[in-house]
């Protein structure tokens, strides 16, 4: 690790001011991803500004039925929360499918959105990588491709976003609250991430010094019938090859509400809006599920080493919708 200074500011605004004013500074929360990457010098901040004690660790019920989750809530605390388990089971399952209990005790909700990619070329500082070092090229595209994206990628970057939690959040239309140098704002999770075509070195639209302070889950009756399915190379403790977050309401045999998001396939949690449109108002049949999944994946651009993700995503979507239909 490059030597760095450690600071523990007294409030959010001074933390934000400090990081906003120093390009070499970084927020520290759970540290599970930051410390990992600092050890390999993928990230080399010279100042760590500890915000763990500054951001809320509470989950509040909002009028109207939504929830406001403090950015400092640990992944395990969030997964175990009764309100999440009952009203947003997809989120609880997504959290529990990620990493391990030990890591989830450290990892915070705010930090989880900002996890960096697991692309091995990003994590190896001796390799070209446009995300780590803009302009050096992408070694992954013609390299080891198993974990790479099939949707939304660009010539400059084919990395995937590793978070499970964010996939469920995307399906649930969650909203991220931030405090930045220019004040507070709210960002839809589905608008939080930038396309790699716009420069893969910046994962999100957050400005320098902008801190996630909370996440809001809108009230969502359909979320009560929701699930997360993660397909991976180990039964546990592995990142997703493909994951599906879905919520479904079926009335009189037809889809009346649906939320669908994919993980492991793109640079961001991929809200499957095309599939949702194809499903809404149509009979909840296997054929329609398959057609919707194929419509979503029609834009997929696969490489030799990750082409299996396309049929895998299709089958997992269909399987998930079938299961939810049986439950609904």
């Amino acid at each position: 690790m490059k030597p760095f200074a450690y600071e523990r500011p007294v409030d959010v605004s001074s933390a934000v001011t400090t990081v906003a004013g120093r390009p070499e500074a970084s927020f520290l929360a759970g540290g599970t991803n930051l410390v990992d990457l600092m050890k390999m010098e993928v990230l080399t901040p010279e100042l760590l500004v500890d915000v763990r004690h500054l951001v809320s660790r509470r989950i509040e019920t909002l009028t109207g039925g939504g929830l406001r989750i403090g950015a400092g809530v640990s992944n395990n605390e969030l997964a175990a929360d009764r309100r999440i388990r009952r009203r947003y089971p997809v989120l609880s399952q997504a959290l529990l499918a990620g990493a391990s209990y030990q890591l989830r005790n450290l990892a915070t909700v705010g930090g989880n959105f900002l996890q960096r990619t697991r692309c091995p070329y990003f994590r190896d500082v001796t390799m070209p990588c446009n995300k780590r070092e803009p302009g050096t090229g992408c070694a992954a595209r013609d390299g080891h491709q198993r974990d790479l994206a099939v949707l939304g990628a660009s010539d400059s970057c084919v990395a995937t976003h590793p978070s499970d939690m964010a996939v469920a959040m995307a399906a649930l239309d969650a909203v991220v609250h931030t405090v930045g140098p220019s004040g507070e704002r709210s960002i839809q999770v589905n608008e939080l991430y930038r396309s790699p075509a716009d420069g893969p070195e910046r994962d999100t639209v957050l400005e320098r010094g902008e801190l996630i302070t909370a996440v809001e889950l809108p009230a969502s009756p359909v979320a009560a019938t929701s699930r997360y399915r993660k397909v991976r190379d180990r039964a546990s403790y592995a990142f997703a090859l493909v994951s599906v977050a879905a919520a479904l309401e079926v009335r009189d045999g037809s889809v009346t509400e649906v939320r669908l998001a994919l993980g492991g396939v793109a640079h961001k949690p991929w809200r499957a809006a095309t599939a949702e449109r194809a499903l809404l108002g149509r009979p909840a049949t296997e054929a329609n599920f398959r057609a919707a999944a194929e419509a979503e994946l029609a834009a997929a651009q696969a490489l030799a080493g990750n082409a299996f993700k396309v049929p895998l995503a299709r089958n997992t979507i269909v399987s998930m919708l079938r299961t939810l239909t049986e439950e609904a």
Partner: protein
Amino acid sequence: MEQKITLRVDGKERTLTIDARTTLLDALRERLGVTSPKKGCDHGQCGACTVMLDGRRVTSCLVLAVANDGAEVVTAAGLAHGDDLHPVQRSFIAEDAFQCGYCTPGQIVSAVAMLREAEEGWPSVVSEDLDADRVVLDREEIAERMSGNLCRCAAYVNIVSAIEKVARS
């Protein structure tokens, strides 16, 4: 970039001056001589360094010591009282739940914390009923909840048995 911190390790207060880069794991092993938690991967990918930090199991290799001034740390060494081993430790011996022993302290801290989590009703990704009030620790549940602790000798079957016996008693 050095700072002075105090940690309470296995019940004993320890004060030390450390480089901000020092992880909790290295502070314990290299500075305080507490070698019970092991370094297996140094990246949170194996669980050998598992300790309880303020009551929760964590991978100590990804925790900066400087950010944890005043914290309470429990290692596998601190679970035993002299010759009087923790029930989980005794069960690991009885079921031959280790071979080389390198992942073992992490496994044991993890198991002790896991039993507490289950008592608190924390679910797992394999829990049939996510909202159940009571967690039934069958073999599948134990295996999933212990999957953050890799064991290359592959004593998993015995590890699950050792924990299952304690969970039932």
